[in-house]
């Protein structure tokens, strides 16, 4: 069964460093998403991406964040200058139709020290 994959599973970085989180969405899906979940808290929407551009973003997705689909399979989230409060699980998701039946990857645990 097709699934969303994410790498790395765990990333440790120092405050101020740049990180890139990678995702491979399900191959026939057209809509891609990033979510964040701080330990013990709810899943929070960051951004959605369609047709090579951002279609929606939340108030969390500020100028330090960016997304890119560099080729036909990868979807990346870049955090330019990490802060301690960026420590969280980051989930990638994809769907065939807009905001409908999103399938999630296993997540990347980001730890900023």
């Amino acid at each position, binding site marked *: 069964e097709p699934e969303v994959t994410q790498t790395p599973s765990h990333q440790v970085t120092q405050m101020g460093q740049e990180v890139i989180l990678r995702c491979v969405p399900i191959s026939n899906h057209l809509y891609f998403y990033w979510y964040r979940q701080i330990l013990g808290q*709810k*899943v929070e*929407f960051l951004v959605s991406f*369609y047709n090579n551009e951002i279609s*929606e973003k939340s108030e969390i997705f500020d100028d330090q964040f960016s997304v890119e689909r560099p080729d036909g399979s990868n979807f990346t989230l870049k955090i330019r200058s990490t802060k301690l409060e960026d420590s969280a699980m980051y989930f990638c998701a994809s769907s065939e139709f807009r905001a409908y039946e999103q399938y999630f990857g296993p997540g990347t645990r980001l730890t900023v020290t």
Partner: protein
Amino acid sequence: TQLLEQSPQFLSIQEGENLTVYCNSSSVFSSLQWYRQEPGEGPVLLVTVVTGGEVKKLKRLTFQFGDARKDSSLHITAAQPGDTGLYLCAGAGNNNDMRFGAGTRLTVKP
């Protein structure tokens, strides 16, 4: 911002009991998804409901979407320890985003 309230926040029951958890909002959703999440893992999609009043069944799980498409419920019949987990509802509005509730953490004791 579409807020989804889930209740109860925590639920602990014995194996074999029935239960219902709720997902409520003041906003109308074009669709509503239910997910189950295990610790340290991504949410796993259980069902999507689209039509007001729609009822979907998945083995012992019954999902209902409110007539006004603002609320939903998940009913589990004869709960088993394997049903233990965090149950999340997520609603899709008019934009290309989806907002999650905080979840109901279910524990089913053998």
